C-alpha cells in the first residue's frame, strides 16, 4: 500500500513552542522509513502524535486509509502499533519480564501466568542476545540493557507498525547488529517500520526511504538508494557540515604529564583491577560492549559509587577512598553521565538552573546567587553546544532528547574542570551539533585540560581519541595508540575473540 | 503529685483530704501565686443555693445575650453542656427574663486554634457575657484577655485557663477522683489490686483524675495497690486493648477506674470478654447516656456523674445574677455524684436535689 500511514497537515503547538508546522507525507506498507532532522526538528513529536501520546493541534493521521485518533498510548497499542521511546522509561522496582510484558501480561484465569511470562521474555532476550535474565530487577541494569528491554517490549507486542526513536543510542555494535537482523526479519513479515536515528551509516544500512524535518517543517522524502549522505545532511541542516568524527587539530597530549592515575581499582559492580593513566591534553577513549562496565568504572573514580580497593591519583595526589562526587568535583573533575533523564538534570529546573548546577559558585554576587549571571552563562554555553531553543527559562524537561543532552554537556562545560569524563557524550545529538561538540572537545584539550570519552560508537572513539582503552566484562583488555586503531582489532578485544 | 491550680483553693474546703498533696501543689503553684493569693474559697453549689435566694428582680427589665464558647459538641459531654445552657435560657425565659444563649465550639477536642477563633469571634460580637470552657490550659489565654479588655463579664465552665483568673463553675476533678477511689475501696473491702486507664495527658482532667485517684488510694488505703496506670487516649478501642493486657498481666485486679465513660465502656468490653463481669469493677467518669444505660443494665459498676447538663445551667444562672448586680461567690464547684446500681433509676434532679430557678419578688 502506497499510503499505509499518512500524515496530513500536522501542526503541533506546545506552550511557547511550535514543534510541527503543517507536516504532510506518507509511509509505504512494509518499508523501513527513516525520519531525519536536527535536534528539536520535531521527529519525536510526530511519532508521539502517531502513537497517541498527545493529540495534534491540527491535522489528521491515516492508517490503512482510515483516520485514526488515538487518545492514549493504550489506544495505539490496542490498534496494533508499537513504539520504542527515545528516553529510557522503565520501572526500576519491577523485573525484566514484568517490564517487558507490562500492559499485556499473559494470564491464567485472573492470575498472572508467571512461568509463561518469564519463558517468553527469556526467549526474546535470547533472540536479542541479551545476557541478563528475565527475573532480574530492572533497577540495577545499565542504560544499554534497559534500552534492549524497551526494544524487546515493542517486539513482544506483535504490532503491524513499529516505531524506533533512536534505539541504538545506548547500544554498541554487537547489539546493533542483532537489532538490525531482527528489524530485517520484521520487514520480511511485512511490518512497517519508522526509524529515527542520527547515525547516517545505520540509515543507509537498513532504511528504504527517509523523510526529513527541519524546524518543525517537512522538507522532503528521499529514496535512500538514490541519494548520498551529503544530500541528506544538506536537507536536514540547510548547509554543509563535516559529518565525520575526526581530529582537525594536531594532538595536544603531553605524554609526560599524568593528570589522573588509576591503580588496581575494583568495585562491587564487578569490575576488577583497573589501572590506567590519563595525560594532560589527552582525549582518552574507552570502548567496550554494553555491560563492559565502563560506566561503573567512571562512577567509581568520580566517587559516585563505593569501591572495594584501588587508588585514584589526581595530579599526583591520592583521592580519599571515601570520596564523594562533591570532593571530586571540587578538585576539578566532571562527569557527564550516561543516563540523562535519571541522573542528568533536575526536572523542575529550567535550562539556566540546570546548566549552573555544578558551577553555582561562579554566579555569586556576595551572599546571593545572581540569576542574571546564570542566564548569561546559560545562553553563552548553550550557544557553543547548539542548544535549541537556547532559552534560559525553558524547562529542560520539555526539551527534545538531543537538546537535553546538550544541556548536560553545557553544565559541565560551565565548570572549570580540568578533567572531563564524558560517558556517551553525543548520545542522541544530531550530526551538525556533533561536529560542533567534537570541535569543542578539541578546544578543551587544547587549553590544557583532559578528557575521558566513554563511547559505544566506533567511529567516534576511533575518530577522536588520542589513545584507546578497551574493556570487557569488567576488565581492561586492551590499550591502543592512535596509530594502532583498527576496527577489527578493537572488536576482537571487545568481544574477546582470539587474543593477539 | 495531684494538684495544679485546683489544689490551692481546695485547701480551705477539703483540708482533711489534701494533706498528702499540699506540698507538691504548693510548689507547683508558686509561679501563679499572685493570681491565686487573692482568691476566696471555692464553694459547693448546693451549699450556697439557698443563701443566694431568687434571681434579683432587676433582671426582669434586662436583656441577657450570653455566648457559650464550648469545647467540642461532637462529644456527648459537651453537647449536654450546650443543651443545659439552652435549657437554662428556656427556663429563665419562662420566668419572664429575656435570656438567650448561643453556643459554639471548636471542631474536635484537638482543635485548639479553632476554639480560639470562636472565642475571638464571640468577643467581637455583642454578647453581654461569655461562658467559656478552654480546651487546654492556655489555648484561649490571648482570646480571653482580649475579651477582658473589652470588659465583657465571663465565667469558666468546667475547664479553666491557667493564666487568666475569672469566676468559675467547675467540676472538682480531685473530688471526682476521690469519690471514685472511695467507692472502689469500699466495694473491694479496702484491699487488693486496682488499675487506672488514663485519658490523653493533653487534658488536665486526665492528669488530675489519675494522679488524685492514685494519691488518695496510697494515702488512705495501704492495702490497695494501683498496679497499672496506662494511657488510652480517651479512645474506646485503645481502652479495651489496654484493659485486656492489664487484666491478663495482673489477674488479681479487682477494679479499673477510667478517666471517662467512653474508655470505661471499652474497659467494660474487655471485662465482659474475659468473663470477669461482676468480678472486676469498672468505674467511669462523666455520666454519659451510654454509661447510665449500662449501669441500669447491670454492667458498668458506677460512674462519677459530673452532670454537665446542670453544670452549664449553674454557669448561666451565675452570669445572670452577676449581670443583674448580685454578688455571687467567685469559685463554685458544680454538683457531682456517684451513680451506681443503687441510684441509677432515680432522676438526675432527684440525685442532685435540683430545684430549678426562682425569681425574687
Amino acid at each position, binding site marked *: 500500500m502506497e499510503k499505509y500511514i499518512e500524515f496530513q497537515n500536522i501542526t503541533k503547538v506546545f506552550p511557547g513552542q511550535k514543534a510541527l508546522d503543517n507536516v504532510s507525507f506518507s509511509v509505504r506498507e512494509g518499508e523501513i522509513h527513516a525520519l531525519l532532522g536536527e535536534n528539536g526538528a520535531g521527529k519525536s513529536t510526530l511519532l508521539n502524535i502517531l502513537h497517541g*501520546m498527545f493529540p495534534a493541534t491540527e491535522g489528521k493521521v491515516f492508517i490503512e486509509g482510515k483516520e485514526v485518533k488515538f487518545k*492514549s*498510548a*493504550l489506544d*495505539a*497499542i*490496542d490498534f496494533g502499533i508499537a*513504539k520504542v521511546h527515545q528516553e529510557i*522509561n*522503565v*520501572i*526500576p*522496582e*519491577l523485573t525484566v519480564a*514484568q*517490564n517487558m510484558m*507490562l*500492559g*499485556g*501480561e499473559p*494470564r491464567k484465569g485472573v*492470575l*498472572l501466568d*508467571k512461568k509463561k511470562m518469564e519463558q517468553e521474555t527469556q526467549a526474546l532476550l535470547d533472540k536479542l542476545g541479551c545476557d541478563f535474565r528475565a527475573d532480574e530487577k530492572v533497577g540495577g541494569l545499565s542504560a544499554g540493557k534497559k534500552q534492549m528491554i524497551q526494544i524487546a*517490549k515493542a517486539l513482544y507486542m506483535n504490532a503491524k507498525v513499529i516505531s524506533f526513536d533512536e534505539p541504538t543510542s545506548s547500544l554498541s555494535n554487537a547489539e546493533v547488529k542483532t537489532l538490525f537482523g531482527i528489524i530485517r526479519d520484521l520487514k520480511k513479515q511485512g511490518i512497517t517500520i519508522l526509524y529515527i536515528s542520527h547515525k547516517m551509516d545505520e540509515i543507509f544500512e537498513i532504511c528504504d526511504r527517509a523523510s526529513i524535518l527541519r524546524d518543525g517543517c517537512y522538507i522532503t522524502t528521499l529514496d535512500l538508494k538514490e541519494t548520498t549522505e551529503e544530500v541528506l545532511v544538506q536537507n536536514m541542516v540547510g548547509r554543509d557540515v563535516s559529518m565525520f568524527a575526526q581530529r582537525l587539530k594536531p594532538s595536544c597530549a603531553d605524554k609526560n604529564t599524568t593528570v589522573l592515575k588509576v591503580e588496581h581499582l575494583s568495585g*562491587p559492580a564487578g569490575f576488577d583491577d583497573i589501572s590506567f593513566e590519563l595525560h594532560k591534553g589527552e582525549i582518552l577513549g574507552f570502548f567496550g560492549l554494553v555491560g563492559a562496565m565502563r560506566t561503573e568504572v567512571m562512577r567509581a573514580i568520580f566517587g559516585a559509587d563505593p569501591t*572495594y580497593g584501588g587508588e585514584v591519583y589526581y595530579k599526583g595526589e591520592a583521592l580519599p577512598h571515601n570520596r564523594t562526587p562533591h570532593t571530586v568535583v571540587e578538585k576539578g573533575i566532571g562527569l557527564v553521565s550516561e543516563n540523562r533523564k535519571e541522573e542528568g538534570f533536575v526536572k523542575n529546573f529550567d535550562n539556566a538552573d540546570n546548566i549552573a548546577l555544578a558551577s553555582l559558585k561562579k554566579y555569586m554576587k556576595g551572599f546571593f546567587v545572581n540569576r542574571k549571571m546564570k542566564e548569561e552563562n546559560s545562553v553563552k554555553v548553550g550557544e557553543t553546544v547548539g542548544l535549541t531553543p537556547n532559552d534560559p527559562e525553558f524547562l529542560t524537561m520539555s526539551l527534545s532528547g538531543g537538546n537535553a543532552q546538550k544541556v548536560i554537556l553545557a553544565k559541565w562545560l560551565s565548570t572549570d574542570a580540568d578533567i572531563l569524563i564524558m560517558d556517551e557524550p553525543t548520545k542522541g545529538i544530531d550530526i551538525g551539533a556533533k561536529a560542533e561538540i567534537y570541535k569543542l572537545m578539541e578546544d578543551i584539550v587544547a587549553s590544557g585540560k583532559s578528557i575521558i570519552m566513554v563511547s559505544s560508537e566506533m567511529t567516534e572513539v576511533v575518530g577522536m581519541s588520542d589513545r584507546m582503552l578497551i574493556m570487557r566484562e569488567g576488565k581492561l583488555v586492551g590499550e591502543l595508540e592512535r596509530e594502532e586503531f583498527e576496527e577489527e582489532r578493537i572488536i576482537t578485544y571487545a568481544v574477546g575473540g582470539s587474543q593477539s | 503529685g495531684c494538684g495544679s491550680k485546683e489544689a490551692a483553693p481546695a485547701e480551705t474546703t477539703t483540708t482533711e483530704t489534701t494533706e498528702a498533696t499540699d506540698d507538691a501543689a504548693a510548689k507547683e503553684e508558686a509561679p501563679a501565686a499572685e493570681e491565686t493569693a487573692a482568691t476566696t474559697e471555692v464553694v459547693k453549689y448546693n451549699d450556697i443555693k439557698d443563701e443566694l435566694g431568687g434571681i434579683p428582680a432587676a433582671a426582669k427589665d434586662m436583656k441577657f445575650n450570653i455566648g457559650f464558647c464550648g469545647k467540642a*459538641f*461532637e*462529644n*456527648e459531654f459537651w*453537647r449536654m453542656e450546650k443543651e443545659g445552657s439552652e435549657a437554662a435560657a428556656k427556663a429563665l425565659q419562662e420566668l419572664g427574663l429575656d435570656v438567650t444563649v448561643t453556643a459554639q465550639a471548636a471542631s*474536635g477536642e*484537638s482543635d485548639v486554634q479553632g476554639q480560639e477563633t470562636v472565642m475571638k469571634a464571640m468577643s467581637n460580637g455583642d454578647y453581654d457575657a461569655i461562658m467559656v470552657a478552654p480546651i487546654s490550659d492556655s489555648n484561649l489565654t490571648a482570646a480571653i484577655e482580649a475579651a477582658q479588655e473589652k470588659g465583657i463579664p465571663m465565667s469558666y465552665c468546667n475547664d479553666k485557663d491557667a493564666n487568666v483568673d475569672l469566676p468559675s463553675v467547675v467540676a472538682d476533678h480531685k473530688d471526682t477522683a476521690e469519690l471514685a477511689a472511695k467507692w472502689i475501696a469500699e466495694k473491694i473491702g479496702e484491699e487488693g489490686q486496682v488499675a487506672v486507664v*488514663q485519658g490523653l*495527658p493533653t487534658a488536665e482532667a486526665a492528669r488530675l483524675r489519675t494522679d488524685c485517684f492514685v494519691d488518695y488510694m496510697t494515702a488512705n488505703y495501704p492495702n490497695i495497690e494501683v*498496679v*497499672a*496506670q*496506662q*494511657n488510652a487516649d480517651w*479512645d*474506646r*478501642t485503645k481502652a*479495651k*486493648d*489496654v484493659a*485486656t*493486657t*492489664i487484666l*491478663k*498481666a495482673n489477674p488479681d485486679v479487682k477494679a479499673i477506674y477510667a478517666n471517662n465513660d*467512653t474508655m470505661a*465502656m*471499652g474497659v467494660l*468490653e474487655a471485662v465482659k*470478654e474475659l468473663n470477669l463481669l461482676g468480678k472486676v469493677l469498672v468505674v467511669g467518669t462523666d455520666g454519659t*447516656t*451510654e454509661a447510665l*444505660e449500662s449501669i441500669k443494665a447491670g454492667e458498668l459498676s458506677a460512674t462519677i456523674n459530673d452532670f454537665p447538663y446542670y453544670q452549664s445551667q449553674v454557669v448561666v444562672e451565675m452570669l445572670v445574677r452577676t449581670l443583674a448586680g448580685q454578688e455571687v461567690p467567685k469559685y463554685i464547684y458544680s454538683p457531682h455524684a456517684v451513680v451506681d446500681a443503687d441510684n441509677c433509676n432515680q432522676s438526675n434532679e432527684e440525685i442532685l436535689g435540683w430545684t430549678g430557678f426562682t425569681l425574687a419578688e
Partner: protein
Amino acid sequence: MKKLLKNNFREVSVIIAIAIMFVIFGALNSVYLQPTNIIDILDQATIYGLMGLGIMLPIITGGIDISVGSVLAMSGCIVAKLAVAGVNPILCMIVGLLVGFAAGGVNGLLISKMKLQPFIATMGTQSAFRGLAYIITEGYPVLGVPDSYRGILNLKLVGDIRISVLVFLIWAVIIYVLLKKTRLGTYIYAVGGNVEAARLSGVRVELVTTLAYAIGMLGTALAGLVQIAKLGTGDPTTGNGWEMNAIAAAAIGGTSMAGGRGNPWGTVLGAILFSGLKVGLVVMNVNTYWQYVATGLVIIVAAYVEIFQSMIASKKKKKA
C-alpha cells in the same frame, strides 16, 4: 533460601526487631511470652494491620490516603446503625464494605481524574467523611450492636484465636495475591514506580489509581467491621489520627513513601511490632511519658535494623 533473604530484607529486619522485642520484654516479665498474651498481640494488631494494608495500596501508587480514620468511623457507624436496626449481619458487612469501596473510589477519582495532590484531596475528604459520620449518628455512639453481628467476627477458632485475626491474615493473602499475582497489582507497582513508563505501556493509569484507593479502603472498612464487633458500638469519633498508625505499620514494614515498593507481609509484621510494643510497655507498666520516648526509639531502631542489615550483607558479598 539466600534469595529469599535477599529479596525480603525488610521483612527479615522486622522479624529480627520483633524477636529482639520478645526477648527483651520476655526477660523482663515472663507474662509477656504466655500464649494468651501473644494472642492478644495478634488481636490488637488486627485493626491497625487492616488499615495499614489499606493505606499501603495508595502509597504504592505514589500517593497517600489521609482519610482512612474518617472512613473507619463513617462505615463503622453505618454498619452499626444497620445492625442495631436488625438488618442481617452479613448484609450489614457487605454494605460496610461497599461504603468503604465507594469512599476510596471518591478519593481515587479526585486524585486521578481531577488531578489533585493526594495529600490535599484526602485531607479534604477526611474532614468531609468525618462530618458525615457525625451527621449520620447525630454525634452519639451507636449502641447495642446485637450479638448476632458481633458473634460472627468474635467467634473463637482455635483456642483463643478469633476469627477477626483470620480475617486480617486472609486479607493480607488477598492483597498479596492481588499485588504479586495479578495484572492490576503489577500496574499498581508500575504506576508508583514510574507513572510515565506505565502510561506509555498502555496501562490505564487513572483506572488503576482509582482502584488502588478503592480496594485499599476495603481494608479500612474491614477494620471498621472488626471494630464494631470488638466494641459493640459504632463511634463517630473513632479513628481520629489513626492514619498515622496505619502509615507507620506500612512504613516500618518496608512500604516506600515514594511509591513503587511495598509488601503486605511487611505491613502485617509492622502492625504486630507496634502492638507487641504497646502490650509490652503496658505489661511492664512503663510510665506514659517514657512510653513516648521508648516508642520513638523503637521505631527508629527497627527502621535502622534494615539499613544496617543490608550494609552487612553488601560487605559479605565483597568477601565472597
